[in-house]
């Protein structure tokens, strides 16, 4: 009966969910430091973590595993939240961080860098390699980002002509994405064997490319983005009642859509440029969250972010443990692990929440 009391109870329930998931991320991240392909024992890992182990083990842990785990947490959160807000502003459950063709553009940029400019040059740099071999280790990532950014601005610019109607944005994104994919195919057709294999390997998402520096850049951009989305969560809620209704509630819908698309695309562009294509996180996590907790963005934004981190951490750990000496591409594992869970949620009998 007392609304205020009920409201407090509900807020407490949401806070428990969010805190619980945050703790899960921390525990899982810590646990993931102990998994990998280098056959280090639990004891070795612990020693390395405390910097008391062998020099090699300390380097493996602090220079490979820690940046990698951080990348999983950051990119997982960024990609998942980008998917969520894209779905809201485009009123389209199929929308994902790559809806504007960002990933396709990034892939083209990276391929161009690898195939044309660097002749099979692959590394985006890591903390182990000696960085003096000629080319800038960030060249491929920078190129990928440049193309993703140009593509995003191009589409957003085009869509202002049509006052940001959601369907126009989705279709324009598809069309531009197709152009980048076609260009990539043509590029690969003319590539050498080495070039093409390097390019294909780049396309597989791989968290192993993360360094402390790339993690810091991703964390900065993703953090600002998520904060921004949290601040506008009521406006995003209003958009759920439809475009016309939202406008009459005082929301500048076109402007909101533009800002959200831009922010989400930049987050995606940064993650994809540094790590390669990691698909499906931006679809699975938002939908599972909405299914279980409803659509209030004050709740779904943090929960989706945390579930993205969890999915990517789990997928990466799985990838590192199953590769038999080397890590499987994490992009494939997110779908492999996530899709069955996703399907079980979508087809479950719990019908009281709508996606």
């Amino acid at each position: 009966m007392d609304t205020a009391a009920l409201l407090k109870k509900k807020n407490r329930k949401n806070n428990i969910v969010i805190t619980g998931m945050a703790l899960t991320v921390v525990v899982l991240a810590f646990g993931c430091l102990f998994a990998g392909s280098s056959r280090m024992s639990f004891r070795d890992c612990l020693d390395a973590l405390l910097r008391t182990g062998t020099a090699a083990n300390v380097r493996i842990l602090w220079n490979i595993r820690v940046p990698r785990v951080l990348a999983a947490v950051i990119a997982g959160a960024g990609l998942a939240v980008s998917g969520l807000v894209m779905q809201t502003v485009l009123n389209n459950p199929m929308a994902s961080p790559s809806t504007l063709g960002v990933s396709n553009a990034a892939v083209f940029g990276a391929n161009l860098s690898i195939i044309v400019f660097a002749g099979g040059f692959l590394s985006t740099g890591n903390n182990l390699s000696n960085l003096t071999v000629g080319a800038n280790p960030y060249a491929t990532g920078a190129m990928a980002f440049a193309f993703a950014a140009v593509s995003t601005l191009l589409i957003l610019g085009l869509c202002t002509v049509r006052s940001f109607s959601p369907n126009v944005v989705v279709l324009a994104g598809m069309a531009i994405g197709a152009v980048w994919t076609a260009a990539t195919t043509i590029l690969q057709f003319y590539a050498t064997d080495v070039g093409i294999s390097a390019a294909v390997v780049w396309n597989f998402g791989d968290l192993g490319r993360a360094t402390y520096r790339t993690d810091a850049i991703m964390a900065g951009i993703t953090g600002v983005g998520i904060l921004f989305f949290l601040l506008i969560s009521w406006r995003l809620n209003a958009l759920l009642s439809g475009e016309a209704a939202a406008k009459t509630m005082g929301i500048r819908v076109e402007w909101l859509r533009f800002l959200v698309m831009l922010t989400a695309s930049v987050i995606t562009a940064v993650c994809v440029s540094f790590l390669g294509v990691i698909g499906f996180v931006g679809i699975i996590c938002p939908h599972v969250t909405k299914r279980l907790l409803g659509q209030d963005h004050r709740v779904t934004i943090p929960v989706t972010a945390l579930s993205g981190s969890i999915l990517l951490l789990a997928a990466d750990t799985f990838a590192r443990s199953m590769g038999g000496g080397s890590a499987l591409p994490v992009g494939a594992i997110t779908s492999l692990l996530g899709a069955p869970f996703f399907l079980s949620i979508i087809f479950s009998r719990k019908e009281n929440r709508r996606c």
Partner: protein
Amino acid sequence: MLSVEHVTFRYSRQGPDVLRGVNLELKPGEIGILLGRNGSGKTTLFQNILGILNPRSGSIRFEGEDLRKLSRAQRARRIAYVPQDIRFGALSVFDSVLMGRVAYFGMKAGREDYLAVERILRDMGLEAFAQRNVEELSGGERQKIAVARAMAQEPKLMVFDEPTGNLDIANEQQIITEAKRLAREKNIAILSSLHDLNRAMEFGDRFFFLKDGVVKYTGGKECFREDVLRDIFDINVKIAQVDGQPVILQKQEEML
């Protein structure tokens, strides 16, 4: 209070004029009903008044201010909308009504916003629903929540687009009675479209008959004449008196 003058509108540059010089005047607290056939431009006119669409020419003034000069949020604090197709996300009823306050609080709802929502829910007898998911409610209940959300905007004018379109006869009666009560108590003007002519007569103070993008007749209940209705709706009707009240009857044989 609301004055629409010579408003014209077309959807595309080459397209036909959907509104061809609409004039309409509404006083504070008055209930105005817009009547006309499908495609006569009722929804288009509403969307122009609400700022969802912009008129090609003419002026729409609210309390003397040009509506186009107001920001969306300023407009939302004056005019609220109950659309024909009512949607909410999967939110609780409380949050759905609180959403109407977004033009006031922007980022984060404050104490006064929560109090306002509680007051509205109590006033409309919706307290028991507060924590329910809106998506689980029936059409009639959702319609009421939409009215509550509009009330949360503390508007001076509420625009209803076919408020009874999907409702059964009991819910229809209820929503109209409720809207009328709120309008009278809080001195809120209402502009609504309605298909049922008898319902319209009972609900409204002032009537606007729209045909081919212009308001052809304006006035009180005396406007419901057989010749007017024939002109607007292309039907033959008979107006009978039942218990001293006029009742509009359709002449069946001539409809064929």
